[in-house]
């Protein structure tokens, strides 16, 4: 049985058919604008696209129209990207425009879009391909025109940030027919030169045609093939080129590229100084901790038996001190007075500092340490070693007290 549609059913089916066909979606159409109307207050554009034979209605909504960088007028040749749909109220098939370019440039844009799509498909812009820019380059390579303002800007910034930074320029035309080949050669040449570890490839701002070399496949592939990480620096902030997509890092301007490539020397110095101070403080703290440990022991033992402490502890202390001393000697080369810091620490570990707390050592005439009054006769000569100096003494009376020794 024959199906009878309502009008809106049929219109809906036509629209679905159009939208299901990928040829009509996101397609490019070139033609001449006629009946151009800028509708207010909506801000939408209504116009007809035509050629010698046919015409098609078109609309561009305000949200898309604001991105168009020229003013369309009737009679103008344009290239429009959009979707074909049925406007069901009037039964008109319309182009819903997403993007519009003037015809001459339109071809360039189209080529740009196609190349971008192809290289994206190849993974040339993938994040994981991107090489890291070194924090402190050894030599900066620059591919640009030697007559442009871009080079002057780059070199000034480099000098300001790091006055002794090395740089090497590979001169290349940055517009005109020879430009793509010369840029490619420049990138390859700098890759062959020793010591360069970051490249700036770019030029100052310009029209789309002037920037064209940076939208070519050969330049894109040379950047991708560069062993050295590349910072792109093409034009002013709004112009994004294929070179920008493929570069390891994109800078909005040549000056910005120089800032990304070359660190502030002063900033790096401060970073090293800061780490040095933290390291010294770290070691001081370590020594303080170890000393606390020793002192805890030293304070316990001598109260019970001072000479045991001195004799046994002395060996440990001497050992400890000589290890420190050896290590310190190795730091002699350091010019920043670390040694002075260490000497203060060392002093606290010396056996002499035990004497400094008021202990003394007593020797007999043979120079043997006296540990007991047993066997010391009245009138004997003994020597007492103090923290500062020594005393020659004569024993007036030898007396043994306490239970541990008995009545000798």
């Amino acid at each position, binding site marked *: 049985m024959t199906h009878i549609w309502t009008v809106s059913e049929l219109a809906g089916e036509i629209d679905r058919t159009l939208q299901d066909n990928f040829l009509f979606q996101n397609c490019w159409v070139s033609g001449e604008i006629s009946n151009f109307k800028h509708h207010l207050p909506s801000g939408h554009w209504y116009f007809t696209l035509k050629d010698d034979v046919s015409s098609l209605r078109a609309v561009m909504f305000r949200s898309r129209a604001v991105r168009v960088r020229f003013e369309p007028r009737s009679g103008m040749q344009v290239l429009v990207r959009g979707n074909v749909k049925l406007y069901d109220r009037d039964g008109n098939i319309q182009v819903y425009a997403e993007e519009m370019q003037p015809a001459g440039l339109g071809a360039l844009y189209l080529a740009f879009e196609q190349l971008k799509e192809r290289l994206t498909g190849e993974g040339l812009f993938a994040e994981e391909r991107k090489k890291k820019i070194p924090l402190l380059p050894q030599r900066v390579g620059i591919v640009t025109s030697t007559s442009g303002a871009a080079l002057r800007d780059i070199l000034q910034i480099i000098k300001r940030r790091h006055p002794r930074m090395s740089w090497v320029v590979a001169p290349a035309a940055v517009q005109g027919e020879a430009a793509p080949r010369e840029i490619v050669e420049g990138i390859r040449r700098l890759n062959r030169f020793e010591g360069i570890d970051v490249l700036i490839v770019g030029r100052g701002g310009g029209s789309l045609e002037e920037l064209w070399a940076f939208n070519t496949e050969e330049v894109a592939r040379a950047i991708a093939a560069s062993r050295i990480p590349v910072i792109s620096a093409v034009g002013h902030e709004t112009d994004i080129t294929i070179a920008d997509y493929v570069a390891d890092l994109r800078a909005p301007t040549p000056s910005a590229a120089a800032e990304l490539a070359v660190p502030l020397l002063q900033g790096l110095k401060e970073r090293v100084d800061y780490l040095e101070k933290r*390291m010294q403080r770290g070691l001081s703290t370590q020594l303080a901790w170890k000393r606390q440990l020793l002192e805890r022991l030293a304070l316990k033992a001598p109260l019970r038996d001072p000479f045991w402490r001195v004799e046994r502890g002395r060996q440990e202390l001497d050992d400890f001190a000589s290890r420190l001393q050896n290590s310190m000697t*190795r730091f002699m080369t350091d010019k920043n007075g670390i040694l002075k810091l260490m000497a203060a620490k060392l002093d606290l570990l010396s056996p002499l500092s035990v004497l400094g707390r008021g202990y003394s050592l007593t020797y007999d005439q043979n120079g043997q340490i006296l540990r007991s009054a047993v066997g010391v006769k009245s009138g004997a000569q003994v020597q007492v070693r103090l923290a500062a100096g020594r005393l020659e003494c004569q024993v007036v009376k030898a007396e043994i007290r306490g239970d541990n020794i008995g009545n000798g």
Partner: protein
Amino acid sequence: MAMDEKLSFEAGIERLEGIVEALEQRDVSLENALSLFQDGVSLIQHCNALLDKAEQVMGVLLEEDGELRLERALPVEG
């Protein structure tokens, strides 16, 4: 520790940061602390040497018959 002359500034700083963090831990033996410190001193000297390096190769790189030639240029006026 023998310092690798080719060690990059970045890698040097990273190692130095590791040493500083290790030295700030409580459970480090004296030997370890001293050896860390010694390594740190070498790294600081290495990093400072990289910062103070005055190679100053500045010029235009030309190619003639496949041969590279660096035409030295004076540093630009800042």
